[in-house]
C-alpha cells in the first residue's frame, strides 16, 4: 500500500523568507503525479503545484518550487519570498496505485507566515 508522510505538523517563517516543507512517499509505480495542495483558513483546497514523475526537471510556479528526488521518494515544497497569504495547511498528495485517480493525502503541515 502506498503512503504519504509529512513529518512536520507545524512550521513558521518570517515574511519574505524562504521555507521548505517536506514530503516523503512510497509507491511501486514508476510513472505517477505528485501534488501539493494548500488549504487556507477558508478551507478551500487549492492546487499549488504538480510534478510528473517521469520529468527530471523540478516543477516551478512563481514563488513555489519543488525538489523532487525520485530515487529517495522525496517531494519537498519550497516557498520563496513568503507572504502572509501563504499561511495555510499544506498537503502533499499521490494518486493511488489501483485507480490512478484517487489521491492519498499526507496529514498536512500547518504553515504560519509571521509579519
Amino acid at each position, binding site marked *: 500500500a502506498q503512503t504519504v508522510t509529512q513529518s512536520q505538523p507545524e512550521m513558521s517563517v518570517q515574511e519574505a523568507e524562504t521555507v521548505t516543507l517536506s514530503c516523503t512517499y512510497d509507491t511501486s509505480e514508476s510513472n505517477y*503525479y505528485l*501534488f501539493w*495542495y494548500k488549504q487556507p483558513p*477558508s*478551507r*478551500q*483546497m*487549492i*492546487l499549488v503545484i*504538480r510534478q510528473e514523475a517521469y520529468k527530471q526537471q523540478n516543477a516551478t510556479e512563481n514563488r513555489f518550487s519543488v525538489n523532487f528526488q525520485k530515487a529517495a521518494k522525496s517531494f519537498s515544497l519550497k516557498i520563496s519570498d513568503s507572504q502572509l497569504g501563504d499561511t495555510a*495547511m499544506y*498537503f502533499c*498528495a499521490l*494518486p493511488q496505485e489501483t*485507480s*490512478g*485517480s*484517487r*489521491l492519498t*493525502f*499526507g*496529514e*498536512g503541515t*500547518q504553515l504560519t507566515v509571521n509579519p
Partner: protein
Amino acid sequence: SQTIHQWPATLVQPVGSPLSLECTVEGTSNPNLYWYRQAAGRGLQLLFYSVGIGQISSEVPQNLSASRPQDRQFILSSKKLLLSDSGFYLCAWSVPQTVYTFGSGTRLTVV
C-alpha cells in the same frame, strides 16, 4: 471552464436527523467524483468515489451513503446522523491523470 458547486456551506443538524449534501460539476463530462471528510486540523479521508452514473465505491464503512443520479451530480446522504458525523466535507472531481478540483466544502455540526 469547469466549475464545481457544493452546498450548503454550513449545516447544523440534530442527532438522528437525515442528511443530504449535494455537489454538481459544470463544464466537463464523465468526471470521477469524490467525497472526502476532514476532521479539524487533520488530513482528508476519502469516503466515496464514483467513476460513472450509479457507480459508487465506498472506502470506509460508516453511517453515510452516496449516490450519483446524473453524470455531474454527486450526493452524500445519511438516514440518521450521529455525533461522530460532524466534520468538514469536501466534494471533488477529476479526469484520470489530471488535477483534482475541490468544492468549497460543507461544515457539518451534529448536535
